[in-house]
């Protein structure tokens, strides 16, 4: 009692950082184990299955990477606007629109272009598609007409409907009977795979985006100005920082990154446009960025974690007969436990973000 407070403080410091964070994860896994038990499954077996089907094998690991690609891009699409205080919930819609514009380009050029032109073209179209879609809420926000949180979210549903319209209509493969999908894209516009795995060129795009963003945020005047705007828009305005320009540009780039994720899915993994090709990468990216406290390095770690859990959902379906949605329970548990804690201590384990 006498020294209770100081002891508790020492304990807090000791238990801080990564350790504390790992404990929170373990807690989430423990609670999920209870859920599995209630359903009469063996949690130890389930976790062993998830492990061996993801990071426990070379193939599993490559499949994790396949999911990490869109997750990192979608998380960066949330992270960048968050730096200036914007909440972009529209990653999913931006992803769909990136895929849609790239599909339009791919169908338009067919196999008329060599791959050295075709692939960069797809990348540009994917980026522009997502970017323009994000520019709509950005413009409305910059004008002070509409809050971007709600408009980006609602535009997700609109984007999905646009994709459906094209897949069921103009882009539909006439030979696919009633199956709503586009024709298979020509090889000259498809992103190359790495080795014999399904890991594709999107990984390089993701890495480039990560490094560039990290550098920009940490080292450049732009990063400084974004922190200023995010930190206190009123003071920024009074010191002449171009807030409107930042809203438009960051949202365009953010949308572009999510668009790249969508482009990668259709140009590499699927090879054609299908409705519902994303299992919610945009939303998972939102989750990741917030869990990582908008820290680029944290985004990488959290993307792996979420990719493993998402992939684990497939495993549970096959080996334990659990529905895929059961891993949503695990994801929400992690969200609950981690977010519940992180408001107490804003930097859990991640090195505190700072420009130097």
């Amino acid at each position, binding site marked *: 009692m006498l020294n209770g407070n100081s002891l508790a403080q020492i304990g807090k410091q000791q238990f801080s950082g990564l350790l504390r964070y790992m404990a929170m994860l373990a807690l989430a896994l423990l609670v999920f184990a209870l859920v599995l038990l209630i359903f009469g499954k063996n949690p130890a077996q389930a976790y062993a299955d998830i492990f061996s089907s993801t990071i426990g094998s070379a193939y599993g690991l490559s499949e994790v990477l396949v999911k990490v690609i869109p997750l990192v891009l979608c998380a960066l699409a949330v992270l960048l606007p968050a730096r200036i205080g914007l909440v972009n919930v529209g990653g999913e819609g931006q992803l769909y629109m990136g895929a849609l514009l790239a599909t339009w380009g791919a169908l338009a050029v067919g196999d008329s272009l060599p791959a050295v032109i075709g692939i960069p073209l797809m990348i540009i179209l994917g980026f522009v598609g997502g970017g323009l879609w994000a520019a709509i809420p950005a413009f409305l926000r910059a004008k002070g007409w509409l809050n971007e949180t709600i408009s980006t979210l609602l535009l997700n549903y609109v984007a999905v409907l646009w994709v459906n319209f094209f897949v069921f209509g103009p882009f539909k493969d006439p030979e696919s009977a009633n199956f709503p999908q586009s024709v298979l894209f020509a090889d000259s516009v498809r992103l190359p795979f790495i080795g014999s795995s399904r890991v594709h060129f999107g990984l390089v795009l993701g890495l480039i985006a990560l490094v560039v963003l990290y550098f920009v945020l940490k*080292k450049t005047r732009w990063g*400084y100005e974004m*922190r200023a705007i995010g930190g206190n828009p009123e*003071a920024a305005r009074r010191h*002449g*920082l171009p807030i409107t320009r930042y809203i438009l540009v960051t949202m365009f780039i953010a949308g572009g990154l999510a668009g790249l994720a969508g482009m990668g899915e259709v140009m590499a993994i699927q090879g054609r446009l299908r409705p519902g090709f994303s299992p919610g990468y945009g939303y998972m990216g939102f989750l990741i960025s917030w869990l990582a406290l908008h820290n680029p390095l944290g985004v990488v770690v959290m993307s792996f974690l979420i990719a493993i859990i998402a992939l684990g959902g497939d495993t549970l379906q096959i080996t334990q007969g659990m529905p895929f949605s059961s891993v949503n329970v695990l994801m929400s548990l992690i969200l609950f436990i981690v977010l519940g804690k992180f408001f107490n201590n804003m930097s859990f384990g991640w090195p505190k973000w700072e420009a130097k």
Partner: protein
Amino acid sequence: MLTQVQAPTNLATPLLEARGLVKQFGDLRANDNVNIAIYPGEVHAILGENGAGKSTLMKMLYGFYQPTAGQIFLNGQPMIINSPQDGRRLGIGMVFQNFTLIPALTVIENVALFLPDLRAVFSQKEIEQRIKEASAKYDLRVDPRATVGELSMGEQQKVEILKIILAGAKVLIFDEPTSVLAPHEVGGLFQVFNKLRADGYAILFITHKMPEVMAVADRITVLRRGRVVETMPVAGATETELVTMLLGSAPPEAARITQFKDTTGQTPLLIFDRITVPDEQTKIGLKEVSFQVFPGEIVGVAGVSGNGQQTLIEAALGLRPHTAGTIHLMGENVANWPVEKKLQAGLGCIPEDPLLMGAIPGMRVYENMILGEQHQYADQGGLSMNWKRVRDKATQFLNSTFISSAPRLEVMVETLSGGNLQRVIIAREVGRQPKLLIAYYVARGLDISNAEAARRLLLKHREQGMGILLISEDLDELFALSDRLLVMHHGHIVGTFRPQETTAHDVGILMTGGTITHA
């Protein structure tokens, strides 16, 4: 047997007492052997310059910090106060400069949250009743059902006081309580102090405003460099004596203009020509406001806060459009200039609210020092920030503008005290040496020596040709520093004077909407 008779021992036993308190932070001894006793039914003022250790002492008394050495007694019993929760349980309540209320909740809900005996299911009616009783008893009138976010700062302060009283506090600690109040609200707060005192509460309040001490305090304790200089009754002391004790030397002579500028033939730095700015909310805005600021002169703007001063700044910066009139800056019509261009042309501004308008709280001092000028510190085509040059510049700004020790460069601005924050803003805005400086409340949060240093700084730059528009409610300051004086009321300029041509009394009448009948 239940008659409440004050036992005679209570008069001799302090409600709260500290003996030999020491607080060491690394190399810094923030408090050194501090002895202080607060008795029921007294208002005890703690005086000290910025950094004298007032806040550290308060934080130990209510349990936020643990003393390095020394002992705290409550009603004569030794106590260890481990946390603010502990302090609250023991009857020690604190009213901070930044309130701790939840804006989205009502007054009732905010008070209820703080009650130690709150049941899981509670009756809002009962709490409302308790609030009303305390409100009436201590002159703390607020609508219990109002949402806190919609209350004025003065009303929020009342809610804070109600909250800690109803939670059972007997010792009330106030950290610069008048700094958030408009001048006319200060009297009301002191009225509350008097009623609480009469009811046996002990009030400890931190301030560096001497007139407040003279008006309300029974005893004062003066702190200097972490030590108690003296504890003494206020009755019988003069303001000058107190200031001398506070500073450790005779008070500095107030800076004032000795020679007025002749501005004939010069080009004005700023011209407002019949500027009208509508304001839908307050209906005040600006109405046909015209004035000029010449190089090397200080134009004072007197007025009660909220009479268009904020709008005037926003119009000058170009943050708010005007519907009529023209503004010339450095001889050019700046109708469509963005803020950035005006700043580059040589405009600087010390805003009325430094934390809200002048600084990025989540950034460090040196990072804040270049806000608005970041282009100059970016190499490689204006991209890569050169933080070393930023630090050098920040050091130079801080050193060249103030006498006493500057806040450290690495400190997060959000953790700075009001005085230090103001010094950072002044160092930045004056250090850049704008041609024209608009300064609102330049002495906000500053202690006596720093406020005086800030005024001397303005005078020095005036000598060097800077034009300064000085907005203030402190008439002494305005009369000492202004070459010319404008009086604002309700968005109008209701008077223009040379300071020697008028009196504070007349300006006061104009400020409050009256007319001068003699003359």
